[in-house]
């Protein structure tokens, strides 16, 4: 599933030091559960994103383990503290070994 995977992340552009910011992330991915069968009755092999992490300036915000019960196009919403200006790093880990990354800068005053 290396093709067509597109991460999308919503992070405020500015915040005050120590503020809580709400982050929304979505990545396009079919999240094949390994439970479905094709037209010939053969099980379609599992192919999912199995881990998602969000860090800010090298410190972890959230680390999620995903199972096949997570819906197609995995969506997460959570809250982070921003102590200073910097960059969020978002990383998704695919079953097939691919890693998808996205970064967002935030200006803290």
């Amino acid at each position, binding site marked *: 599933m290396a093709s067509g995977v597109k991460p999308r992340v919503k992070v405020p552009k500015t915040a005050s030091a120590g503020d809580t910011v709400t982050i929304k992330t979505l990545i396009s991915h079919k999240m094949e559960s390994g*439970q479905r069968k094709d037209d010939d009755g053969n099980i379609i092999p599992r192919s999912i994103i199995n881990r998602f992490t969000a860090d800010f300036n090298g410190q972890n915000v*959230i*680390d999620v383990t995903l199972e096949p*019960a997570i*819906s197609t196009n995995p969506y997460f919403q*959570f809250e982070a*503290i921003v102590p200073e200006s910097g960059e969020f790093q978002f990383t998704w880990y695919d079953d097939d070994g691919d890693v998808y990354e996205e970064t967002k800068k935030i200006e803290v005053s």
Partner: protein
Amino acid sequence: LSSLTGLPAFASMMDDAIAKLTGGADLGEGAVTITAPEIAENGNTVPIEVSAPGAVAITVYADGNPVPNVATFKFGPLAASRSASTRIRLATTQNVVAIAQMEDGSFQKASANVKVTIGGCGG
């Protein structure tokens, strides 16, 4: 009859998975909440939110899915709240359960019943 006591033969797969997580520790209630719709028309994408102030991690299970594990959220030093939202698949009407591991090592449980009109694991 005494040989039957304590055997996990009748425990569901979810109970086994929870026991593996907690090591069989007692489950408190009240410190963790799970928010899910009462009725989900489409089991392919059911929005849920878990929240547990003071938790280091929250694991979500669905007791009517072929595999009960759904997701584990571990919170890092910059997590502003111990809460998260996502969307999950539910095969049928069932209970969605959140187990929170607290900072002191204890565990808390909350569950929500979701009625599913169209299942999310169809073949």
